[in-house]
């Protein structure tokens, strides 16, 4: 080789070296890897350009030594790093360290430094002195800050994920043709298995499934693979400790050009499932209770006519079947009978306006034509929007019918009372007729005898006088019978007097006779004085007085209708005047004073005893009874009673 050749070769070599050095620098720059050399004897540290850059310095900015390098290591990492290096060097192992550095601008970076292990045979390896101690070290340094951060972030997100899975009782899994290839640790927990173990085989997995769900589960897995379709089902599993849990499994197929398998989640929905079952049960109980009591529940806005809730029973009460979907407000509303709708609407509008609760009764006509009585109770919560109500609907048809039955019964009782009264009068009249007929017959016979004694020749005056005297006796006897009747209430019934509130009696009698009055278009109306004293009287007899006078009034108006007025006023003498007035035919034109006489009647089926008895009772109570003709039409019957204080005094 010529010198020139050598020169040339050297130049070429130098150029090559320069080129490879440049390429090395370039490679280091791209890979963020620098190298360093540390002469242990001279304490000179040589860095590559990239090493300078990693440390936040300009390439070859200043010479470095151990102290300057050490100063740039993060204070927290400094001690362990160098101690570790020393120990490793002594032990003859390659120091391999990760540590943080602080750039001059304060930025912290994480670097990874490797000092190659096999340095004795490699150029640049640390040289050892006679004792075997290296006097030169060579190594690389790599900025791994970004990778570190990514790793941290990944770790963090994995932590969040697993924590999230743990909190949500949700595990994840992957499944391919060979079986499960991944179970998240939470999925193990859910199944009561050790998270460090392997995912179970399909067979092992099916063994975990509750025996009752196993067949359907197997079927589902077969279908999954056959159809490659997503799925979502809930089944029971039995943990090794024997506890049953509900697990909801959601999976989606993974397809990358071809079908790869499934990924999905397993969620422990036991609490949710039990709650759902509980809710379902409670709902069933509620539905049952509603159906038993014919009570439906609902929530709606009456103004916007929106229904938020309507129980099945609620729909059923209106004759609808809610199993085919929600029934609109108007369908409910249109069943209401026209006769009831106006009043109902007014009530609801008032309630809405006032924001008040309501309680209404109305009738509906169901699609099958049946008329039902419903009661609706609505509650408005002030925090809700105007018109919003929750409430119940109750079918009260049976109750209403029972009430009507009761009313009919009461009417019957009233009719019966009337019939009884008439019958009693009839009996009394018959008994009386016999009692009176006896002395009258005797006196007629005696009169006949008397005439015959006088007709004799000569007349037998003695016998005639005796007969005449018997006539007188029998005549008196007849009069006594009448007197006895008049005093019937004085002697005949033992006094059962107590303090009586006339208002009570008037109320009772009005209630008892109301139906009868309504039937003849008669209004009963009372104008009672506020401070009406109580009276000391026989309650039953007073009832009879009211009944007689009120029945008479009704009788007088039964063909024309009219108004029956009961009024009362106290007199200065402490008496009470009660007046019962009608707008009927009025008093008879002929001998109106005779109306109180026994057997005097103007009615075809009357006994003529009503007013006579009334008079007896009132007089027995120390009062008087009389009648007056009204200014317009009709008559008024008045009677007086002693006020309680007066009666005591």
């Amino acid at each position, binding site marked *: 080789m010529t010198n020139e050749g050598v020169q040339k070769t050297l130049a070429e070599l130098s150029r090559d070296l320069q080129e490879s050095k440049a390429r090395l620098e370039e490679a280091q720059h791209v890979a963020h890897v620098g190298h360093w050399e540390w002469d242990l004897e001279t304490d000179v540290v040589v860095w590559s350009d990239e090493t300078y850059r990693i440390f936040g310095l300009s390439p070859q900015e200043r010479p470095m030594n151990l102290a300057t390098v050490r100063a740039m290591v993060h204070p927290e990492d400094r001690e362990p790093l160098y101690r570790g290096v020393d120990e490793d060097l002594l032990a003859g192992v390659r120091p391999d360290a990760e540590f943080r550095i602080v750039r001059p601008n304060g930025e912290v970076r994480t670097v990874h430094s490797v000092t190659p292990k096999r340095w004795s045979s490699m150029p640049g390896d640390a040289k050892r002195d006679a004792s075997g101690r290296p006097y030169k070290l060579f190594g690389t340094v790599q900025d791994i800050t970004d990778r570190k951060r990514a790793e941290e972030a990944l770790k963090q997100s994995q932590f969040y994920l697993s924590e999230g899975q743990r909190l949500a009782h949700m595990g994840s899994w992957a499944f391919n043709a060979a079986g499960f290839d991944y179970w998240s640790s939470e999925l193990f927990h859910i199944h009561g298995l050790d998270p460090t173990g392997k995912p179970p085989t399909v067979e092992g997995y099916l063994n975990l499934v509750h025996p009752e769900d196993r067949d359907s589960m197997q079927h589902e897995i077969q279908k999954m693979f056959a159809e490659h379709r997503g799925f979502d089902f809930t089944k029971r599993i039995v943990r090794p400790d024997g506890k049953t849990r509900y697990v909801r499994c959601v999976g989606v197929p993974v397809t990358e050009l071809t079908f790869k398998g499934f990924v999905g989640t397993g969620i422990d929905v036991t609490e949710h499932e039990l709650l759902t079952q509980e809710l379902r049960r409670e709902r069933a109980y509620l539905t049952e209770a509603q159906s038993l009591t014919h009570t439906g529940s609902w929530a709606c806005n009456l103004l916007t006519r929106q229904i938020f809730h309507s129980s099945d029973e609620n729909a059923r009460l209106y004759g609808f079947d809610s199993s085919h979907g929600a029934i609109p407000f108007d369908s409910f509303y249109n069943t209401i009978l026209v006769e009831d709708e106006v009043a109902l609407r007014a009530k609801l509008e008032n309630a809405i306006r006032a924001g008040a609760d309501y309680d209404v009764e109305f009738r509906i006509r169901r699609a099958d034509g049946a008329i039902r009585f419903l009661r609706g109770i609505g509650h408005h919560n002030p925090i809700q929007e105007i018109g919003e109500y929750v409430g119940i609907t109750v079918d009260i048809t049976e109750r209403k019918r029972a009430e009507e039955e009761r009313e009919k019964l009461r009417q019957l009782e009233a009719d019966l009372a009337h019939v009884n009264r008439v019958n009693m009068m009839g009996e009394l009249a018959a008994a009386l*007729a016999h009692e009176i007929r006896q002395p009258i017959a005797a006196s007629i016979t*005696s009169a006949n005898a008397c005439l015959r004694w006088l007709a004799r020749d000569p007349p037998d005056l003695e*016998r005639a006088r005796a007969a005449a005297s018997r006539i007188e006796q029998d005549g008196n006897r007849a009069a006594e019978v009448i007197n006895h009747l008049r005093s019937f209430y004085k002697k005949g019934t033992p006094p059962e007097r107590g303090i009586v509130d006339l208002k009570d009696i008037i109320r009772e009698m009005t209630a008892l006779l109301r139906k009868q009055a309504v039937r003849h278009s008669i209004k009963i109306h009372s104008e009672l004085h506020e401070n009406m004293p109580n009276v000391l009287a026989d309650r039953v007899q007073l009832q009879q007085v009211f009944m007689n006078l009120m029945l008479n009034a009704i009788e007088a108006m039964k063909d024309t209708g009219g108004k029956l007025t009961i009024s009362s006023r106290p007199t200065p003498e402490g008496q009470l005047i009660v007046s019962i007035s009608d707008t009927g035919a009025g008093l008879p034109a002929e001998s109106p004073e005779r109306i109180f006489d026994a057997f005097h009647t103007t009615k075809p089926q009357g006994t003529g005893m009503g007013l006579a008895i009334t008079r007896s009772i009132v007089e027995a109570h120390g009062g008087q009874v009389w009648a007056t003709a009204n200014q317009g039409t009709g008559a008024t019957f008045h009677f007086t009673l002693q006020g309680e204080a007066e009666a005591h005094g």
Partner: protein
Amino acid sequence: MKPAAVPTVFIIDDDRGMRQAIEDLLESVGLRAESFASGEEFLSRRHTSGPSCLVLDVRLPQMSGLDFQRRLAESGMQVPIIFITAHGDVPMSVRALKSGAVEFLTKPFRDQDLLDAIQQALQHARAAQEEQAEIHTLQERHHALTPREQQVMVLVVSGMLNKQIASEIGTSEATVKIHRGNVMHKMQAGSVVDLVRMADKLKLSPSK
């Protein structure tokens, strides 16, 4: 024949005034009257045996007039009854009349109606009493016959000839003739027809 006794009208009514009035009325037309407050009182007192009738109030304490009527009929006492009542009705009067009452009067009644009814009733009573008296006389005569004569009388009124009677009782025709003559005499019968009428009243029959 005995002469008829003085007719008596018995009055049963719980009303004293009524009782007295009727008694007085009857006396004013010359009838005898006796009055009682109840059926029991009437039965417990002996009364005259002449022709009589009963004026009976329907409504009586204890035993009603209709019950009393039935009881009299059961005891064989035949007395015509006139009912009076203060509250009669049609079914009651029908029942009374069916049971043999002469009349049913409602109080107060016309005096003449009562007196007419009483006359009618006494007529009945008188006829019944005469009939009773005649039967009584015939019974006495019949009693006076010998057993053989009673036997022959039954056979005679049954229409048998002497010869047949003789063979029936196993004797001669001549003996039968003697018995027959005795029967006609003792019974004071003018003819066989007369005897047949008597046997009828005595309710005699061949089987006896």
